[in-house]
């Protein structure tokens, strides 16, 4: 039951990627399977857990709820695009490491991208804004506290 496939050009982590996918294919599946960027994880595929969060034009979105075709013409950033080109960890990655902000790590990419969207936006993030944003994703291991500490610490570093 092979459906029609279409050609797309996606801008992912600063690179132009040509992919050929079914129109029904989600952005998450396309990133994972066609771009081989498996750092974006799928936890529910119905938009609740947030493990698949990526940045679209700087805004956090659930990549499981978006079709790949909808991402054409936009700038996509995934967890693989977070560290600097020389490999230096992004302040958020560094802070998650230092504050034990992850255990099994499956939700981590989603939380990193959620927080990156907030901390890299023009408006300085307050603690309240951070806590509010973090409540949109699920983590089953950490109890969230260390994630919150990590993001607050990264916010401080990024303001300097």
């Amino acid at each position, binding site marked *: 039951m092979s459906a029609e496939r279409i050609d797309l050009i996606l801008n992912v982590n600063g690179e132009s990627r040509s992919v050929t996918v079914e129109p*029904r294919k989600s952005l998450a599946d396309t990133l994972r399977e066609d771009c081989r960027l498996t750092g974006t994880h799928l936890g529910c595929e119905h938009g609740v857990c947030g493990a698949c969060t990526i940045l679209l034009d700087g805004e956090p979105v659930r990549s499981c709820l978006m079709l790949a075709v909808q991402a054409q013409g936009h700038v996509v950033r995934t967890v693989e695009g977070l560290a600097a080109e020389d490999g230096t960890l992004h302040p958020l990655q560094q802070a998650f490491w230092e504050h*034990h902000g992850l255990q*099994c790590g499956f939700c981590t990419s989603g939380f990193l991208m959620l927080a990156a969207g907030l901390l890299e936006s023009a408006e300085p993030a307050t603690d309240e804004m951070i806590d509010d944003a*973090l409540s949109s994703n699920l983590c089953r291991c950490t109890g969230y506290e260390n994630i919150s500490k990590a993001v607050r610490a990264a916010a401080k570093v990024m303001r300097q």
Partner: protein
Amino acid sequence: MTAWAGRSLPRFEDPAILRGAGRYVADAVVEADCLYGAFVRSPVAAARLLEVRVPGDVLAFTAKDLAGVSGICPVLDRPDYVPITTPVLAGDEVRFSGEPVALVLAASQAEALDAAERVELVFEPRKPVLSVGEATEPGARAVHDVPFPGPVNTVVNATLSTAGFQAAFDSAAARVTVTVSSARQSALPIETRGSLVTFDRRSGRVTLTTSTQMPHVVRTGICACLGIREDLLRVVAPDVGGAFGQKMCLAREDVVLVFIARTLRRAVAWVETREENLRAAWHSREQTISVTGAFDPPGRLLALRADITADVGAYSCYPVTFGVEPLMALAELPGPYEVGHYDVRARAVLTNKCPIAPYRGVSRPVQTLAMERLMDVAARRFGTDPLDIRRMNLVHEFPHTTPSGLVLDEGTYVEALDDAARAVDFPAFRARQQAARAEGRLLGMGVSVFCERTGYGTPAFAARGMAITPGIEHVHISMDPTAGVVARIGASPHGQGLGTTLAQLVADELGVPPDDVRVIHGDTDATPFGWGTFASRSMVICGGATVLAARRLRERLASVAGDLLEWNPQDLVFGDGRISVAGTGIGVTLREVAATAYLNAQKRTDGGSGLYAEADYDPPGTFSNACHVAEVEVDPETGDVRLLRFLVVEDAGRLINPAIADGQIRGGVAQGIANALYEELVYDEDGNLVTASLMDYLPPTWAEIPPVEILHRQTVSDPVLSGAKGLGEGGAMGAPAAVLNAVSDALAHLGVEVFHMPQAPHRLHAAIRAAQEGAPG
């Protein structure tokens, strides 16, 4: 030299995961050239399956195609246990909604899911048995057509009564009864289950890469079902995205996948959807515990009677069986309390629901709820302070033998309670509570005290009658010619950070930095047989085996260094990558020793070659202990409960990596709060799961979970080689009782007491309304 153990080292596991370079099952599937599987699952709870109609263009396997595969039948060697076999695919009968009936294979997951929808099931529905009440009433239909030695559908029926119980029970001045219950819950790892099986044409072997906590046990279980030698199957646990017990049982799906990969001689994969995970990936917790305490005022507990009933669903989980909840409750219910006389019955009852499996804490969140609610209710009855009634009854002399024969090693039960009481300042809280009540705000504070049995060795499982007795861990450790250290372990961490903490233990034994130590796990081809990671056991058992193995390696290193230095090995000290003669400048680097051991073995007087050592560890088990305190505010209009404060005083022995230990506590408490207030798997009257998405099943977010204050005691007891007692489950065990005691405290003046988890807002709201409407005037 300062010890590495005891430091909050950032984990070695983290940088790869943070860069998105972790490798979970679904990532391996992306890279594989494989067929994708989708299971066709029963849409009804109970039925006779007449036919599976597969369209001609669909590749599907049904029970008929797997006729030579044995079912899964874990055994407890006890007269009251009824063995139940799980067919790997349902054949003539389906017994719960979500039970797998067929596997459809296609070129992509989307195509497989499409094709699975076109498979038609023809069945004759039966009236499902959906509760313990329905399952045990006279004339109830048997969920399985097997002989039951006792009442129908009762598959475990255990009793224990201490000599002289009745006299002690009757002699007490007062008896207080409470009945607590837990809804069905899901461990809910954020990564669902999933597996990839690849076939190696050269050797004929298959490799199962699966999201599991126990790769060796999975291999043993699958090979038993297929009747093949274990060397034909390699099982790999890659990065595992959370498990909490849900991934410590043999999945029937994995047996099917391995069989098909061997039959087709090609790779097949299956990644579970969230709906499947909620419907079919093991449920947990559903049980009722009724306890009657016989007390002498002002609160000394003389005797305890208990009735434990677990709704275990339709099948038995391998290897621990569906006896795991009731039998653990039977053995451990008295918890940290000195109970002179104990009389208990514990039953497991079959229903047409998803089978249960362990989930963080197993029965102990509910046990602790029973004992801690009992203490509060009794305290109120006798007008005794809730802390005092606990102090009166907590075990304070060790070792202490419980009425079920467990030995509690050294702990700090009373001290932890006292630490917690001081930290939260109960009198000050009472004043705040009064002031708030005057403003119409309802505050409550609740406490829970418990001990956490960890590091069970083989005798503990043998005592339960398990045909398979997990317990021993085996560690193989080696040093290569460049002095790099590798530890191969049978434990299988999935977020606990053993790659870091075991390295810290090894580093201290060998005098190397921990980042020179690599821990290899989760691969049956590369690790010694082990039972995996569950039951808060790894730091105790695998940690102990690691220390023993590292000490043996150290002896070999000292021997070779002694040869090089021409010095007595007994006088050599290790540190900073060198082996030196104590008190002198004479020494040799580990690199020189390692190179010599391999490349110039003729210089060795011990006759050995290479540098390796191994050790087993099978400890008697130990008990850590903790006290939790919750402060809540209840909104009487909505039934919503806010956590204002949560405190944990933990005594888990020596902390190898305090940050990781605290992370385990915080994560456990969050799951305990979820269990206490939010999460519930709900079936409708036909046996359909109505909470089959994350919009219906409600795991809490950071908006619901409070920060957790943690205080530590570190009692090191003799039975523990690593000094660490294990604490992976304690957070989830203690939190529900603390929260429900706090809610009951907030509502005491209304006469409302809560005994059920979860105490979801609608339930609490109804209880408050009922009390208000029933109140005079």
